[in-house]
Each structure stands twice: as structure tokens, then as C-alpha cells.
């Protein structure tokens, strides 16, 4: 009977560890990338779960002035147009409301000619304005550049996202072993101190 309950205990403990896959626990993180003039942000709890309904605040790094704020959607995404600012860097802060907060420094890089949707529409409209001529001759160099830049931005978006996502380092096996090593070392120091004290007493 005693043996049986012991086996059951071990199995249950093991099962509970199996359900709970090792993962990188409760910390919120945010990363941002741009597609044209739109800055996308994605917020996640480390562990991969999207941070829903979390407050995102965009702050000018130079002045600390709050530019805009919003909430993430169900997949942890939040988009905003590139704000009109002179600051070379934006500080994007995420606060999930339960004591978790993090930030992402977004550097504003001078992008290729402004490629807003309006401008694209304009170039398409001009193209459609003269249907009798072939489209290829109808595009001016400027319009072609705009179109190509737009397409490139759309294609680069996912790559930028991936790059941004990878900048955060998750705890590795070495970190864990290192931490345990420290703990054993500290225990050694504590034991040494206590033994010295005991010697002094006797």
C-alpha cells in the first residue's frame, strides 16, 4: 500500500510536469517594425501567448512627451501611423495592467519617399486616367519608384518583424545551469561562514 501510493505520487508529479511544458514565464515584451509609414507593434508574454488588451504608449525619447496611446487587439497587435516628430527615436511602452511592463526603442529611419496609401491611389488614378495608352508608358519614373517602394515595404514587413522578434534573448540552458551554480556557491559560502562561527564559539 505504501509503495503503491509512492508510485502514484511520482507518476502524478511527473504528469504535472509534462502538462506544464518548460517555457519562459511571465514577462511581457513588445517589439515594433514598420511597413511604410505604419508602425506595427506586437506584444507577447514570454511563453508566446499574445498580450491582449494591453496599453501601448508611444513616447518621444528626447522629450518624454506622450504622442499617442492605444490598446492591443486579441492577437496582441497594435498599429499606428508614424507620428510627426523630430525625435530620432520613439519609446514604445507596453503595460499589461497586471504589473508587467516593458518597452521597445524604435529608431525612426528616414524611409524612401513617403509611400502612403493615398499617394499610391493617386498614382493608380493617374494611370487609369488615360486608358487608351498602355500602362507601362504611362508611369512616370517617380510613380514607378513609389509603387516599387511600396511593394518592397510590404514584402520587407514580415522580415522586419522577424528581426525585431529575435532581438530579445530567451533564457538558455546555460543561464539556468549558471543560476543553479550560483546558488550552490552561495550555499557553500554560507556553510563556511557558519562553520567559522561555530569554531569561534567552541
Amino acid at each position, binding site marked *: 500500500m505504501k509503495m503503491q501510493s509512492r508510485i502514484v505520487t511520482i507518476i502524478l508529479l511527473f504528469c504535472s510536469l509534462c502538462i506544464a511544458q518548460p517555457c*519562459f514565464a511571465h*514577462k511581457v515584451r513588445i517589439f515594433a517594425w514598420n511597413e511604410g509609414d505604419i508602425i506595427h507593434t506586437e506584444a507577447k508574454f514570454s511563453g508566446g501567448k499574445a498580450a491582449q488588451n494591453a496599453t501601448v504608449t508611444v513616447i518621444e525619447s528626447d522629450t518624454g512627451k506622450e504622442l499617442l496611446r492605444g490598446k492591443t487587439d486579441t492577437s496582441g497587435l497594435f498599429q499606428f501611423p508614424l507620428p510627426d516628430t523630430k525625435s530620432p527615436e520613439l519609446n514604445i511602452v507596453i503595460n499589461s495592467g497586471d*504589473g508587467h511592463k516593458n518597452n521597445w526603442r524604435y529608431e525612426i529611419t528616414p524611409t524612401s519617399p513617403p509611400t502612403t496609401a493615398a499617394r499610391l491611389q493617386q498614382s493608380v488614378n493617374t494611370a487609369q486616367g488615360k486608358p487608351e495608352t498602355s500602362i507601362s508608358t504611362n508611369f512616370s519614373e517617380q510613380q514607378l519608384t513609389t509603387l516599387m517602394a511600396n511593394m518592397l515595404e510590404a514584402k520587407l514587413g514580415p522580415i522586419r518583424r522577424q528581426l525585431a522578434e529575435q532581438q530579445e534573448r530567451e533564457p538558455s540552458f546555460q543561464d539556468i545551469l549558471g543560476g543553479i551554480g550560483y546558488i550552490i556557491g552561495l550555499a557553500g559560502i554560507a556553510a563556511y561562514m557558519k562553520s567559522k562561527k561555530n569554531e569561534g564559539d567552541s
Partner: protein
Amino acid sequence: MHISEGILSAPVLLTGGAITVVGTAMGLKNLDYDRIMTVAMFTATFFVASLIHVPIGPGNVHLILGGLMGIILGWGCFPAILTALFLQAIFFNYGGVIVLGVNTTTMALPALLCYFIFTPWIKKNGTKRKIAAFCCGFFSILLSSIFMAIALTTTDQGFMGTAKLVIAAHLPIMVIEGIITMFTVAFLSKVQPEFLGITE
């Protein structure tokens, strides 16, 4: 459970720090030579347990094992949790060095309270011990959530908002920790009763 840096106000940080200093001093004073290895072992367990994440409920929660540490270490849970949190802050960026005091308090104080409340029952045999162990695991997390909500009272969400959010997120982990604590205590009482201070 780890509160990030830059959220709490100075008075909250100082209060947390003061409680941690007192608790750690008491813990180190009461630490016997023979118990050092036990404390270190549970520090390591706590350090690693937070990497085991439980994919249930609205949030993303991890094991804490505060109740178990409370039962076994008593006052020793303060230095143990402080050390583990410090290493987590450095290695994994959980929490932070400035909020270390508050984070230690939210996790170690409930563990200590559970130790004082439930130890008499742990020393008894049979069902009472099991119930006490379950309660220890369960209530240590519940109290931790409440302490966390108190610490976050001054933020935008206020006490009730945060409390609801945090307690809802940690409900599954309360039950899981209760069960784990119950089985671990049952197991230890058979194999290593001196760990629990039981003399049979």
C-alpha cells in the same frame, strides 16, 4: 508574479525593501548549519520552477512553489526567495533589481504566513496533513496575488481591477500548486520526515 521595473512608486518599493530586509535577517539568523543545503536546494527549485509555465487560464502563469517553501523552510524562505529572484532578474530579466524587495515580499510573506498557520496541522497524521498541505499551496498563491494587487493599487487599474486580473490569471496555478504541495508533503513525510520537522 514578477512585477516589472518602473511601475511602482517609491513608498511601495521602500516598504517592500524594508520587509525583505527584516525577513532575510530573521531567515539568516534562524538558519542552522544543517539546513543550509535544504535552503539552497529549494532556492534552486524555486529558481527553475518559474520556467515551468502552465498553459491554462487567461494569462500565462508559472509554478511558484511558495507554499512548499514556506512549510519546509519557515523563515528561511525569505533568503531563499530573495536569492532566486535576484538571479532570475539578472539571468532572465524577470522583475528587476529595484523591485526585488517588493517581489520578494509578495512571494515570501504569504509563504511564511502559511507556515505559521498550517504547520501544526502538517505535524499531524493522515488527512489533516494533506488538507493543510493543499491549503498551503493554494493560499500562498492567493495571498501573493492579493499582495501584488495591493502593491499595484497606485497604478491606473486600481486595487480592484488589478486584483481581479491577477487572481483570475492565477486561479489554475493555485489548484495545481495545492495538489503538488499535497503530494510532495505526503511523499516527504514518508521518505524524509525530518524535512518537515516531524518526529515520528
